[in-house]
């Protein structure tokens, strides 16, 4: 296990409710969870238990009803909106089930977008983006638009995009949910390789049992609560080999 490296994210008594008129829908009900630096963490559970909601809150895309999310022991939801956007830009990478690439921009521009938001030097950013595309095996497709790429290719572009600012944590919501077996394998290989090389923490929400077996730790959500946290020994063994 890699938790010896220290805790990156600490989630304390996290609640999230949605309201439809007077009716309250309690999605998360007191989640306590630590994400360690360089850890591969899978969040599993049935549909509708709040996996994605948890991921959105960790990713600062949504605010909790109660509880806190601490990055390096700092409660991020104390930040004003603009600072939170900056934090998201620098510290967090996202990979979604549906790639969410911007259709008007080329693969290269999509990858570079996260860095361009900070108004970083265009040339430097493009070089970095090219290196990332090369890394995910799509250097040749850099001038192609999303509609000219296959599903697997789009997802690899999305992974490259998540990495442009070298975030400390990558949040992936069903990254292989929409891919065929071969594409899934390639995407997962990429994730494991990245984790090994760059030491980023990965929080992956998934239904995919195969994927769940290959991570450092699996957390199960039932009815908005964490009911089990186990170390995936198989994965450790594979990695050690």
């Amino acid at each position, binding site marked *: 296990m890699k938790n010896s490296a220290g805790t990156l994210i600490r989630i304390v008594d996290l609640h999230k409710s949605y309201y439809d008129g007077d009716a309250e829908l309690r999605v998360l009900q007191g989640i306590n969870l630590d994400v360690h630096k360089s850890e591969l963490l899978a969040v599993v559970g049935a549909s509708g238990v709040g996996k994605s909601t948890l991921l959105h809150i960790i990713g600062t*895309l949504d605010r909790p009803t109660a509880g806190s999310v601490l990055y390096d022991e700092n409660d991020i939801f104390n930040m004003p909106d603009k600072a939170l956007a900056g934090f*998201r830009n620098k510290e967090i990478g996202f990979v979604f089930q549906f790639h969410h*690439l911007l259709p008007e921009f080329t693969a290269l521009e999509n990858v570079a977008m996260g860095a361009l*938001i900070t108004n970083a030097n265009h040339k430097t950013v493009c070089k970095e983006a090219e290196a990332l595309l090369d890394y995910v095996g799509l250097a040749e497709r850099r001038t192609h638009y999303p509609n000219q790429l296959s599903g697997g290719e789009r997802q690899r572009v999305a992974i490259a995009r998540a990495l442009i600012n070298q975030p400390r944590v990558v949040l992936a919501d069903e990254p292989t949910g929409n891919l065929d077996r071969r594409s899934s394998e390639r995407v997962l290989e990429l994730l494991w390789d990245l984790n090994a090389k760059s030491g980023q923490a990965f929080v992956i929400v998934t239904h995919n049992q195969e994927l769940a077996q290959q991570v450092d730790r699996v957390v199960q959500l039932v009815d908005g609560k964490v009911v089990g946290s186990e170390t995936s020994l198989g994965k450790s063994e594979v990695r050690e080999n």
Partner: protein
Amino acid sequence: MRFEWFVASRYLRSRRKQSFISIISIIAIGGVALGVATVILVIAVLDGVEHGLRDRFLANEAHVVFRLHDHSFFGNYQKRITQIQAIDEVVATSPVVLAQIGVFPEHSDTIQDVIYIKGIDPVQEDAVTGFSQLVSGTTDFQNSEYIEKARLIRDETIAGGIVLGGRLAARLGIIKGDVLRLVVKLVKHPANESMLLPDLANFVVIGFYESEMAVYDNNFGFIHINDAQALYNKANRINTIFVRLSDAELAPQIAREIEDSVQFTVLEGIPDARTWMEIQAPLFSALRLERIATVIIEALIILVASFNIASTLIMTVMEKTKDVGTLRTLGASRGNVMKIFMIQGSVIGTFGTMLGTALGLTLCWLLSSNAVRPSYWYVLVLVLPIVLQVLIALRRARPSRGGWKFAAATLWILGIGFALYCAVRPISFAELGLSHIYQMNQMPIKVNWFFVIFINVLSLLICWLATLYPAWQAANLKPVEALQHE
């Protein structure tokens, strides 16, 4: 390039399946451009009409008209004229007998019209209003060949010659050499005192006055001042002095000076000097009112165009909701997102305003230039865009290149410019039969640069304001909801 510009410019251009948005961008730009062009053109025409009327009016009109408040005759006028001429800015003066009089032409036995008779000294009147330049025929009121001929062949007494307003003469059916009878007053019938007879004076028409100022051409007759004095039996007396100044704008101030410097006794009456502004006040204030009303209407036109921008942006925001979610996920702040859409709207507004200004000024130039444009070019104008469109369609099958696009755009602009050049001709009031109403033959255009700048600033401001709501709407999309938007 800053991030917001980078994204906004891509959204404006848009590709392939999103080409819908770029077409509505074009429509939005066109809306603003048409609004701005219309405003510039209409205001230029209104300004042109006002200045045209003013210039025409001032060229042949006294700047100050001096008379007694009851319009009565006064004597000793040479002394008064000297007093007026002592004022520095006074350039010329003309003593005048001004009266209304009934007329009937020789072929008629009823009074056909009541006209203004202006008894003038041609030389002095020339200095004030340039009278003789506007007369076709002679201004020799005493010894014209027409008068001599009339005196030879007619047994009536001929009092003198008369120069008649051109349109008035046409209305009365009079040609040069005809005799016009003026009704000076009514006298009792020698045999039956209860009957009144007109005391007539016969004048021979020696020329026509054509100033293109409807008020004179329709209503005035000019006779010699001595004849006018004889008509009213007022030897050496006049009732009006026309004054020309070195600068027409000084009229109000000089009018007061004239009133103060010309001496009259209480019995004679109170002096009253009226400026050209006062005399034409109804006309110029009507024009000004019209201009204010027009500016308000034109501002509304731009407002309508700005609604176009707002709706374009709202549609873009709806189209791009998911993209907004993605951008927020990547760390774009609300401010970033707001700027993207504000830039988009502002670019539409700026391009529209620039295009509209260019279009408006081009139209102004075309309408005011007198170049002759052959009408068969219309055919070419129709064919050119069609050919272009076909070429573009053919070319679209192959990968597009920047150079080709540029050439196509240039051709389009040239084609539209050419169409304008052929389509727009100076509007001639004479052709439309309106010159007697507008007192000028061709629609005058005067570009008011201050107003052009004003309308540009106004248009940019309105367009910018129109971006606020849609941009705010985009900025306030919740990232998670935006991502899930279908």
